């Protein structure tokens, strides 16, 4: 059971890394809009892949 001396600090370090990642995402504004993503997730994907840069006309 003394493995917990290693595992628990490891878990905490992982949590800290995740937290830093979260802070970075918040500062980049990824969490500013929490209402449109739920709407977007209900909408179906398009049938064909549409490449806006190389696809000139439909």
């Amino acid at each position: 059971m003394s493995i917990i001396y290693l595992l628990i600090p490891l878990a905490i370090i992982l949590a800290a890394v995740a937290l830093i990642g979260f802070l970075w995402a918040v500062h980049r504004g990824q969490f500013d809009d929490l209402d449109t993503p739920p709407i977007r997730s209900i909408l179906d994907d398009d049938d064909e892949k549409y490449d806006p840069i190389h696809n000139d006309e439909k």
Partner: protein
Amino acid sequence: MSPTHTDVDCSHCDLPVPRGLIDEHSDTQFCCEGCRAVYTMIRDHGLEQFYRLRDASSTPPSAPPSAPPSAQSAHTYPTSSTSPTPTPTHTQPYHVFDDETFIANHVDQLDNGTCRIDLRLSGIHCMACVWLIERLPRVVPAVIESRLNFRQATARITWDPNRAALSTIARSLDRLGYPPHPAKTTHAQNLHRQTERKQLIHLAVAGACAGNAMLLAIALYMGLLDGIDTAHQTFLRWISLGVGLVALSWPGSTFFRGAWAGLRLRAVTLDLPIAIALGVGGIAGLINVIANRGDIYFDSLTILIFLLLTGRFVQSRQQRHAQDAVSLMHGLTPINCRVRKQNTFIDIPIEALHVNDEIQLRSGERVPADGTIIDGQSTMNHALLTGESTPTQVGPGDHVYAGTQNLGSTLHIRVTAIAHDTRIQRLMEIVAHGVTQKPAIVRFTDRIAGWFTLTVVTSALAVFIGWWIADSLTTAIDHTVALLIVACPCALGLATPLTLAVAVASAARRDILVKNADVFENLAKHGTLLLDKTGTLTQGQMRLIAWHGDESFKPLVALAEQHSSHPVAIALRTAFQNHNQNQNHNQNQNHNHNQNHNHNHNHNQNQNQNQDQDHQPTSSARFPIGQTTEHGDGGITTQFGHDVLRIGSQFFIQSAGITINPKWISLAKPHQNHGHSLAFVAWNHDVRALAVIGDELRPDSLNAITQIRQHHWKPIIVSGDHLGAVNAVARQLNLTPSPSTANVSPEKKLAIVHQHVTQNHRVIMVGDGVNDAAALAAAHVGIAVHGGAETSLAAADVYIAQPGLMPIVQLIKLSHKTASVIRQNLIISLGYNAIAISLAAAGLLSPWIAAILMPLSSATVLTLAVTSLTRKHGMSCPSSTY
């Protein structure tokens, strides 16, 4: 029903297609070219999915209400539509989007050569709109990415400037039915965003700490049951301490700061008992871990922090939704204006305007900046500033203000003030300042907090002394600490914000936007309700109430008044358009009427022609109507061949040399007493008819006033209109007319509000114009209504999107219900606290009992809060519009 009405619906907007536009050979029908254009565009780019999605979301997911309602009131901004289908405007010259000043102000140049801009779009209503806007790259290939923020109706568009100009993109958006404007991020918005982000981070950290602390605690509890190695136990306790300290010092600091701020102002808020619990628990835990003795409660403490922050987060999000929805209603300033450069006028973006520039303002356009008229005569709509829709005459030398609308002919204006110096901006600043001076409310929970803290501290002292005497100091300390921790008003602190959040959402579903949740508490009490008359108690528009005299003059009157924008003219026109349709169905009746006239030959022919076609009185091509002159002194003269039709006030008719038969005067008397307007209709030398025009009381006003009284609010009319009209309305509503409340100026309105506030009466102010804004801000609760001006929207706590008084009654009922739910929550949470404190006092409390009690109490109040307000409890459905 119009004779052109059919049962065929437009393929784009689902409104009925007029008979003349039906194409038998096509399987798609359109009610107008605009719809045909949008449909074709959507089809050409393979985006028909839009229609499937739009029909699937027939109830938009709590969408922001549509653009400023314009169907009922003829005097608001020239927005697109009130139907939930985008319709293009085609009126903006978007080439100003390519102007250098515009680009400098609004466009971000990204590193990889692309450009990005935030555009505020009108007409966003549902998720189909989200789908369509985010497929903009299909319509304009130069667009690389298009992402819509639904709540703020703002699209962030990234595009390649080498492949297309911004104006092309803007025009495409307009053609799809979403006219774009550059999005302005105000300082206040930035502040909001920072606060939101901070709240989110606190919540996330609190959640992470709570989860981990719980896991560690479970390990320790298992250890209590099955035995645990001391070294492991110590290790786990130290880790718990670490996690707990992170939670207490980072997200937990909110409560310490709040309690300290309250104490400094000698006010007790709910933050105080929470801070006591957290502080005592934290310190005791710290000591116990270092000294390796006693219990630790970090799992309960971290859960406490997490739950309380969740409640506050949910509440502030609901409030922000309402605030966003209201700010979407703010009129959009024009994006461009026409400025004289040498001898021509060019379009420039509004940011490039300077003082002393000369601008040209055409009919229907809105003034971009304050200025003086140098040339031109016209009528302007000052509703933005005064709330009155009656057009005012303006000419050279008169001042015009940014935001008002030009109704008549082209004007040339010398600019005197731009941007923040304009009158409307100055007013907004005054209003913003006024809002901060609002009479503060001591919240219910904060009042309870004082007694609560006192009780808890007293019990703690009693327990401490008791156990010290009965046992040892350490036992006393342990039990007191346990008591202070479980005595935390977690349930109360969680339940109240959640209840308020549910109430805000419930109100929003009824088109009542609550920007500040304190209103619920205020409205659940009693006081004075100051009401505007026009538009709130009355329909807000002049209508034909009665017609005495010859019926056959009605189409003539409609024809004569067709080009006037005077409210009386509009009222007559509206009444008689409907009338004409009925006439066409009863042709025989018309012919009979014809025989009774001694019109000249010409006129008879014309009457017959009138009846024979399906046309509206507005198509005057075959009618030999001559000159129509609108006179300044209240009348209109129209030549019909050799005859003259005069419509106007008594004074106008008499000044034209016509004697009015006394029978008309006696007919007019009762209406005059009601404060209605009269229009005498004279043909050549005789008065032939009398039209009574007035603003009728809304059908539900009396019912609403009665209910308001029942809920202990005293209604008082405060109106800028003249005494006769106010008294007439007051009498109909069983209210005592009071001379001091008519002809009220904006300053007087504010003074009346102050008067009541100083007398310690709670004041609700209901209004819509800019002249109400200061009063709205100063009242305990300011309610801006349907069709409100921009400044009153900013000043008010509540915005009601529906006309009439019934929504206010609904709001009052909702407030009472909310207050009772909060009281219920209080009783339940006090019950839990009593149990917990008793256990702690008896020395029976241990960390695992606390860990169960706290979430249990929170879950109970949470369930009650969320379900009680959504259960049907006799509240009427949103009243239908008129």
